[in-house]
């Protein structure tokens, strides 16, 4: 026990180092290559230029509001998708009839999820927050539904039999067996879905609003501000990583990994 506890911070530091190292290498290459090959700022910005774009945007206050706006939209859209999609997916997994009916529709919609809905979203909801949130929701929903359904299907027969023979009602089965049983897959779905959420967000913000990171990213193109473009791309990447680390990874640790040693090794 104590040995494990002692090893832990070291192991964590090592894994952080491994995670950061490719970015460090990339940064080094960037710092060296731009002056070495005399790349023009219109083609690709230098690292110091991106840094000063960051400082400028951060100090004049706009950056924070763009970040918060975009984060809010992702949370709203993805949140609704989870709240609606998880029960829907679980029910589909539990009922052969439901899944037979909805599966073709789901399959049909995969290629259309998210971005393809932007035109209709703006017609229905106008330009602004609602249309973006709808597109994000739409992009996430299918990944969540599909993975929740898969999670139910992968729950072992003997667990289901055990619960039934212990007298569990459908309602109890749903909350205490199917939901936790499907949780590993639901987390996977949320992870995939959040990736879709950011992509949907960027596309929707470009078209449907005048705030947010995606909007700023696209607007910068008009003024050839490659430093702002790259800055926005970096920020979106970082925000996604933070969400993954702060929300999904702890959720996974507290549930799936707590329940099973094997799953941790498999993951």
């Amino acid at each position, binding site marked *: 026990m104590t040995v494990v506890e002692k090893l832990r911070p070291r192991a964590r530091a090592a894994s952080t180092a491994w995670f950061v190292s490719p970015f460090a290498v990339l940064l080094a290459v960037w710092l060296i290559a731009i002056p070495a090959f005399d790349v023009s700022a219109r083609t690709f910005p230098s690292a110091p230029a991106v840094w000063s774009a960051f400082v400028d945007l951060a100090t004049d206050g706009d950056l924070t509001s763009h970040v918060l706006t975009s984060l809010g939209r992702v949370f709203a859209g993805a949140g609704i998708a989870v709240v609606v999609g998880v029960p829907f997916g679980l029910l589909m997994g539990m009922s052969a009839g439901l899944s037979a009916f909805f599966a073709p529709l789901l399959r049909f919609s995969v290629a259309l999820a998210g971005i393809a809905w932007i035109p209709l979203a703006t017609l229905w909801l106008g330009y602004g927050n609602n249309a973006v949130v709808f597109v994000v929701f739409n992009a996430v929903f299918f990944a969540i539904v599909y993975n929740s359904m898969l999670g139910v299907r992968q729950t072992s027969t003997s667990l289901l039999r*055990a619960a039934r023979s212990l007298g*569990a009602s459908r309602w109890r089965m749903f909350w205490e067996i199917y939901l936790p049983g499907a949780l590993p897959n639901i987390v996977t779905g949320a992870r995939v879905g959040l990736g879709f959420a950011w992509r949907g967000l960027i596309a929707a913000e470009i078209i449907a609003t005048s705030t947010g990171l995606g909007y700023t990213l696209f607007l910068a193109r008009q003024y050839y501000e490659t430093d702002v473009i790259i800055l926005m791309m970096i920020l979106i990447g970082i925000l996604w990583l933070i969400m993954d680390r702060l929300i999904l990874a702890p959720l996974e640790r507290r549930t799936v990994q707590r329940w099973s040693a094997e799953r941790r090794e498999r993951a």
Partner: protein
Amino acid sequence: MTMLSVDQLNQVYVDTYTGEATVAIEDVSFDVPEGQFVSVIGPSGCGKTTVLNIVAGFVDATGGTVRLQGSPVSGPGPDRGVVFQDFALFPWKTVEANIAFGLKTQGVGKVERRAKAQEMIDLVGLTGFEKKYPHELSGGMRQRAGVARVLATEPAIMLMDEPFASVDAQTRRVLQQEVLRIWEQRRTTVLFVTHDVDEAVFMSDRVVVLSPRPSTVRADLSIQIPRPRSWTDMHTNTEFVRIRRELMTMLGVETGVETGSRSAP
């Protein structure tokens, strides 16, 4: 009183792909009186699991009836507690929550549930492991929890399908004695499926022998070894040796070689 009565059970499986029909169970009938420990034994693939799954209500029989205390059963229910070969403990629940689950579905209040679960935990020797998750337990401990979970709700009959097949030989012996110790305290009616002759003879009041597939009841032997039983003196027990030999011959196992190579634990 007859607790369980299995009458002219017949099971045909149809392969959904080829359409080919397999007669797993031809015609199986037997009764289990209240408080008896009955084993079903037979060659691999003869339909032992099928019989148990039908009694449990997991599989619908193509013919025949299963009655529990006189009324026909359909579908799974808490009157028949099942102990699974793969334990089937809920990985997301602690040992305590697993054991209390059946009580929860019956609407037993929290305090009473706790007390009852603790009683079962102490009974099966898992004291101190209440807050552990199943993956933190050894195979033997998991199956103790599996037994406790079933006994907590006091089912009319306990069904066990090769419950000790997933643990090592040493642990298996210990668990067999443990389950007998618990059983002797409670005298729950037990239907026990195994392909291990020693296990069947050691544990049971009666052994029902099935023929190879398509199966019928080939023999029904009563075992008069006094209880409490323990492995220490079993191999010198004349009754044990006699019935064991009889079963071995019936199942076509070379008795001479087997008996000669065996050493008492």
